[in-house]
């Protein structure tokens, strides 16, 4: 009985037996996958609509049917039997195959869309052509690789969302938040931007020379790092376009700024970052639904937590630097066209950075458990950003940080936007768990996390001394939080990374955990129970 055994399950104790309905529904999924491969190699030419609906239909029927066939005879309750036995969910052969397949898909999507059938300046072929009919129907444009991706993404959230609801049907919290995720993905991320794009076909809109940007309204900066790029801002503030569309562009711009500076701090104060990360966000949405089978694969070690903090906050710094550079440069080129010019902007940035730095040092209680080193590093960075910005303004420089803003942006887009959030973020689901991006990379999660940690009413309450240290909560935490470490000493859990999915509270066999919002903020949320 050696401790080295990864688990008792090494020699898969009882191989999986699929019953007939399960085989049939998995067969449907197989049909969908086969059709995708056929389409990739040109097999769909001339039969695009047939292929499209067959692919969508077979994934929908297969996925929902499979969920039905595995859960229909099971009483409502936690369904984690065999999780560590199945090859796809224990980093076994199937897991690796899935990981490689997802990764390959993302590589093609980001860097080799031609493989998928995108032909710049010419009609689509291959897989992308298959989705032309749907794209024409929604926006009136032929499909792009992003449209194909969006369609699959939405389909995955809807189908796997239904599976998730079935799995957690005993919990109203999970049912509601999954419905919310499915709604925001379908309406905000998928349909509304397509419908808005349709408006661009209007001859009057075309006459303005501007076009309404593709805008998923819930996808806020800095997750949406390109939100304040020149071309988007220009089209949002185009006077002719705005007068035609009832100031749609201005509204978009205001929502864009307000969501990060006003709406999200208020909601995060009251409910924690979960209102976004596991109720609204698309990345979170995919992780919660399609990624649910992999949530236990996240690394729970203290070491991983350390890596996480360095990595995610570095991305946050990078996105801030990049955005400041882009916006400053844009405003500089605009001269005195708007009341917000590069001078006002520089002062605003400096005021925000200096203000936060002062807050760190005059309200040490608020940041009680943060080490002195981290405070110094954070203050240093913020003062540096403020300094650079002010320096550029005062010396009349065109750029901040002495760098070409679009070179910065290009690098960020490549390394963070594509490689981290897509290829690693989703491609590595079956290897590192479903929230790799949300945990290690997302700058939005970083901002919301800082708010949640220091200034929010949210916490996971531990129910007195009832914890039996079994480890289900930690195992099923997709963010890799060692929930048990807190629960077993009767302490509430307040962690920047917690997305409030609520699965720890659901899998706890003794009813020890509960997600709650209450009067205390800051560290007082973490007092140990006296029982």
């Amino acid at each position, binding site marked *: *009985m050696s401790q080295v055994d990864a688990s008792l399950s090494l020699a898969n104790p009882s191989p999986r037996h699929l019953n007939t309905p399960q085989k049939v529904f998995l067969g449907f999924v197989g049909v969908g996958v086969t059709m995708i491969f056929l389409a990739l190699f040109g097999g769909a030419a001339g039969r695009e609509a047939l292929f499209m609906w067959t692919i969508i239909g077979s994934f929908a029927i297969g996925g929902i049917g499979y969920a039905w066939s595995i859960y229909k005879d099971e009483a409502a309750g936690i369904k984690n039997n065999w999780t560590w036995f199945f090859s796809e969910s224990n980093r076994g052969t199937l897991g690796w195959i899935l990981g490689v397949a997802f990764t390959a898909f993302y590589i093609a999507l980001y860097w080799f869309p031609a493989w998928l059938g995108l032909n710049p300046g010419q009609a689509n072929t291959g897989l992308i052509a298959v989705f032309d009919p749907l794209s024409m129907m929604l926006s009136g444009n032929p499909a792009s690789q992003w449209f194909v991706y969006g369609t699959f993404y939405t389909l995955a959230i809807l189908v796997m969302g239904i599976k998730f609801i079935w799995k957690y049907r005993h919990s109203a919290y999970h049912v509601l938040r999954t419905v919310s995720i499915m709604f925001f993905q379908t309406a905000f991320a998928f349909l509304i931007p397509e419908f808005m794009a349709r408006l661009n076909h209007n001859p009057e809109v075309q006459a303005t020379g501007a076009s309404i940007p593709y805008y998923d309204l819930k996808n806020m900066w800095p997750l949406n790092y390109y939100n304040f790029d020149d071309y988007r801002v220009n089209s949002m503030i185009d006077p002719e376009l705005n007068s035609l569309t009832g100031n749609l562009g201005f509204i978009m711009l205001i929502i864009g700024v307000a969501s990060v500076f006003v709406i999200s701090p208020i909601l995060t104060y009251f409910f924690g970052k979960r209102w976004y990360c596991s109720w609204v966000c698309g990345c979170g949405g995919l992780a919660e639904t399609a990624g649910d089978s992999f949530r236990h694969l996240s690394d729970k070690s203290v070491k991983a937590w350390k890596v996480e903090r360095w990595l995610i906050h570095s991305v946050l710094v990078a996105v801030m630097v990049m955005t400041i550079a882009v916006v400053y440069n844009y405003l500089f080129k605009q001269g005195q066209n708007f009341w917000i010019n590069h001078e006002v902007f520089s002062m605003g940035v400096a005021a925000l950075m200096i203000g936060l730095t002062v807050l760190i040092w005059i309200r040490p209680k608020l940041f009680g458990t943060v080490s002195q080193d981290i405070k110094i590093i954070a203050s240093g960075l913020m003062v540096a950003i403020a300094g650079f910005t002010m320096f550029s303004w005062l010396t009349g420089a065109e750029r901040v940080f002495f760098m070409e803003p679009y070179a910065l942006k290009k690098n960020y887009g490549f390394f963070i936007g594509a490689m981290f959030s897509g290829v690693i973020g989703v491609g590595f689901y079956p290897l590192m768990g479903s929230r790799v991006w949300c945990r290690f990379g997302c700058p939005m999660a970083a901002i919301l996390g800082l708010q949640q940690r220091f200034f929010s009413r949210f916490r996971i309450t531990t129910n007195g001394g009832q914890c039996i240290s079994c480890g289900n909560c930690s195992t099923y935490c997709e963010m890799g939080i060692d929930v048990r470490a807190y629960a077993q000493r009767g302490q509430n859990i307040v962690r920047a990374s917690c997305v409030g999915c609520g699965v720890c509270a659901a899998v706890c066999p003794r009813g020890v955990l509960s997600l709650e919002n209450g009067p205390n903020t800051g560290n007082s949320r973490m007092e140990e129970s006296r029982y």
Partner: protein
Amino acid sequence: MHVVIIGNGIAGVSVARNVRKISDHSITMISSESDFHWSRTALMYIYMGHMTFENTQPYEKHFWKKNRINLVRKYVTRIDAENKTIHFSDGDAMPYDKLVLATGSQSNKFGWPGQDLAGVQGMVSYNDLQSMEEYSHDLKHAVVVGGGLIGIEMAEMFHSRHIPVTFLVREDSFWNGVMPPEESNMINREIRMTHGIDLRLKTELREILPDEHGRVRAIITNEGEEIPCQFVGLTAGVHPNVDLAESAGIEKHRGFLIDKYLETSVKDIYAVGDCAQLRHPADGRRPIEAVWYTGKHMGPVLAQTLVGNQTEYIQKTWFNSAKFINLEYQVYGDVANKVRDGERHLYWEHPTEHKSVRIVYNAATGIVQGFNLMGIRYRSDVCLHWIENQTLVEEVLQNLGPANFDPEFFKTYEHELVRLYNEQNGANLKLKRRKSLRNVFAILNS
């Protein structure tokens, strides 16, 4: 000062951690079972595939080094109390200044014919789990004997592997020695709606029959029925592991007998957790409380004594919890399996679902004694606060909202309890406080 702890379960670890917190004593923790502390309560989840063995270990490997808790993987055969030395099965020995016995429990066997056959075992240790795993490979039918918490866990484990189980329970309703009839009956129903578990109440094991290889092939019940099976789980309770008592000359009864400072009859030898038996338990409490929380509570108390600050162990207000298949159970305070003289029970049960709340209070004074919950979670701090502050049932009922600990958006039933109480007592109480954290703090600070 060298503190040696035998056993790395929750009781032993709790002592080790707390000694380290308040002293620089050198600490050695010995186990023959596993290299590292793991959560015994999670045994079933390993078998069911919810967790790996590593997942059940609450502390990472570096924790032990960092906290200078020396881990030894050996089997202790003998204690030489005179020379303050323990002896291992490999011939080695180790001196100690203070010795803590945290040796836990083992499964009861009641002298059934065939109880030592291959494929017949209990479920307490990691070893038990591994052998259960081995026997599961060609298992067509299992029998579980004994209607307690481990029995139902074992039945659920086999159920998860699609192995049919016959579950023999001596009592006429599951766990009715602890649970009041209504709750006990609810568990019967929960088991019976689980396809593949055949619950046989009022049925006992008479004999276990071997095949030609010395493995179990069938059992015979007290009614003479022969049930073919290739595995028999013996889960009719546990008893303390007291094998070491004799060599050390420690006085024992069922467990190592300990005084209020958790010390055994031999100086500088202490016992904690499942293996310890209090000479003078508190009123209405058992001398051996073989649950997780006992081990966890004794640790910090004994640690004080071990560093020279003699501290009495006082049994905390009772609480416990369990999960029967999908049905969660929590108890706070004193809830017996029947309405005893001088007490009254307010019992509400959901008409269709498996949910119930029972509030026990003194008939004469109205002081609340305990809460028994099925399928509904209540808040530990609030329930214990009410019990320890001798709160009156009518005050509890009017403030019952914040006692609820179910997740957000779950339906709450506290108004039903108030309505029921009004109906039964001709009262006119109103639920004044709703479920909210603000109201919880208001109660706890009152």
